[in-house]
């Protein structure tokens, strides 16, 4: 086989001094040195969670502080890993939200089972369950990984409500009781 000799271009003076390359390298180093840091000092620092993030499922209250869940148990039904367990109960007649009639006596979500699919949020007819920004959940026992009703409301807090469905219903009923339309 014939050998073909490739002619090399001779190096220029600048190339032979190697200084431009060193400076170019130093520029990269410098640029990175002065750029804002992307590393988060987790867990002291926490990332900003986008609005549509599917974190730990939580129960929420409406702005009037009324628990929104009416224990219809649709989330329990739809939950693929059967993580949700609801004990339905009746609201006592003296309660401020007695007009809703029904609320969960106990509401448990087993976070060892939960797969964060968000079907519970999607199915909820009362907009009471939301997968919010909480993403880190740890526990030392299996029991501590089951979120009960108190914990779920603690995690969920209050979210704005565009409907106030039950309160409107109550207002209408009161208006009619006070003299009709």
């Amino acid at each position, binding site marked *: 086989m014939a050998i073909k000799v490739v002619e090399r271009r001779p190096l220029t003076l600048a190339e032979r001094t190697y200084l431009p390359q060193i400076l170019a390298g130093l520029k990269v180093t410098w640029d990175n040195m002065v750029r804002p840091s992307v590393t988060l000092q987790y867990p002291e620092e926490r990332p900003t969670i986008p609005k549509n993030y599917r974190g730990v499922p939580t129960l929420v209250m409406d702005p009037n502080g009324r628990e929104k869940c*009416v*224990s*219809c*148990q*649709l989330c*329990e*039904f739809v939950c693929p890993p059967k993580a949700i367990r609801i004990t*339905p*109960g*009746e609201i006592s007649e003296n309660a401020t939200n007695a*007009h*809703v*009639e*029904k609320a969960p006596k106990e509401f448990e979500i087993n976070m060892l089972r939960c797969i964060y699919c968000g079907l519970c949020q999607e199915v909820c*007819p*009362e907009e009471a369950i939301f997968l919010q920004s909480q993403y880190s959940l740890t526990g030392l026992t299996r029991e501590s990984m089951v979120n009960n009703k108190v914990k779920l409301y603690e995690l969920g807090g209050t979210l704005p409500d565009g409907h106030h469905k039950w309160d409107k*219903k109550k207002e*209408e*009923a009161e*208006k*009619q*009781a006070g003299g009709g*339309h």
Partner: protein
Amino acid sequence: MVTDNKPSLVTINVDGVEHQVPAGANLVDALGKIGKEVPHYCYHPKLPVAGNCRMCLVELGSPMRDRATNELVMENGLPKIGWQPKPAIACATNVTPGLHVRLESPGVKACREGVTEMLLLNHPLDCPICDQAGECKLQEFSAEYGRGYSRYVDEKNAKPKKTRLGPRVTLDDERCILCSRCVRFSSEIAKDPVLGFVNRGSYNTLTCFPGRELDNNYSLNTVDICPVGALTSTDFRFKMRVWFLKQTPSIDTESSAGANTTVWSREGKIYRVTPRQNDAVNDTWMADSGRELFKSVDAPNRVNYATVKTAKATLEAALATADEVLSAGSLAIVGSSHMSVEEQRLLARLAKAKDASVYIPAHVGKGDGLLVSEDRTPNFRGALVTGLTDRAPVADLKALAADIDAGKVKSLLIVREDAAMLGLPASTLAKVRSVVLATHHNVTTAAAEVVLPALTVFERSGSFINCQFRLQSFAQAVPGPTGVLPDALVLARLAGADAATVWSELSANVATLTGLDGRLLPADGVQLDGAAFAAHKFPEGKLLKFAPVVLA
């Protein structure tokens, strides 16, 4: 001399396809039989027709005839159909030969949509908290014929949400669609007319007559037949959504009427008991008292484990002691009409093997002429058929107590009876060695040497023979307490028999049960020939589907 039990058939035409249906049948039922559902709320096959919900509107027609010649008018080689100008309700129509029905036409669809929209005008749409959700006709038909949003701009009518109609029934007036099924049931079936409508138009409201309440023993049937969530069971209210519940066919054990029931359970817990249709026994009804019986399953005094001399023992050890007690000589057995046919047969074999005398206590109460009979046990006929006894049940056990006092009885086996309540006091019981098979602790179990745990009707399977001599089976709905064996297995062990072959043995040796297997019965049971026992005097009076045989 019945040669053909089948009703004569007529041909009707449904959406252009001809079908054979029973002559004279109600159109809703007839169409249901051929798999065509006519949406309806107020119509109920066991109640008089009211025709007020208007949901079952269909278009009807019949072949036209020439008035002069009475011959069919033909059109394009086919009989010309004269369609009625307006839709008619199917529930008030009986099928006639040549009837033409349109179920799928645009007109019929428009009718259903119109009725649905009207019914939803003032409906609260509170399905998330409504117990009927999942078995609600209004919910189902709204999905099919509703428009998905409301055109109604005015305020909805507010009505009372939580009215107490009676001790067991709560009314949510807003959900009521005024179908009047409950009103008709109360007056026609329960013969206790207490319900009615007051006010007019959209203020029309279901209520009890002044000073009355819906407190008869059949009040919960109104909850069953309510097509919406207006009438709710106070006991079942807000307890569990129906789609979680498993349905198990069972039999009401409160009396020998033997009403067919469905037991609704979830994860081993029973939530409610409802009637199951059996046109030969209970139609679609049952008494309220029978629906409470499941609460005994979780009673605090349940016998959960075997005891020997009141000390907890393994079932094996208790059975070994029981064997020893039963062999102590001169055995007497107190059997029960609460036992299933299978258990009674095994007990009969034990009695024969040990040459024991058998006592079956009677439990007699007042009958109501419908579905609670005088004999408050489900299966005395079974004791006769299986040969456990050939005598009428004894009113009390005083004769047995006298025998014990006289030293004629050395050992005693009591199955599913509280002997102490029947004239056999604990002091007498203490004189003999005794084995008790019981579901709940009572004075008798406290005095017995060996107590074997038994299962309730909800925890075991078997069959009963009701007062009509109808053999009906019940299935296990929930598991029993841990480690408790079905009564049949315990009795088989004591009798040295095999519980698995009890039906082949019954089928071979008992003429009344020839060719039958209690595990393979049809859902509505099998009618037995009770002629062999016609000489017995039974306490039952007339019931919904039973009339006592009057001896000449």
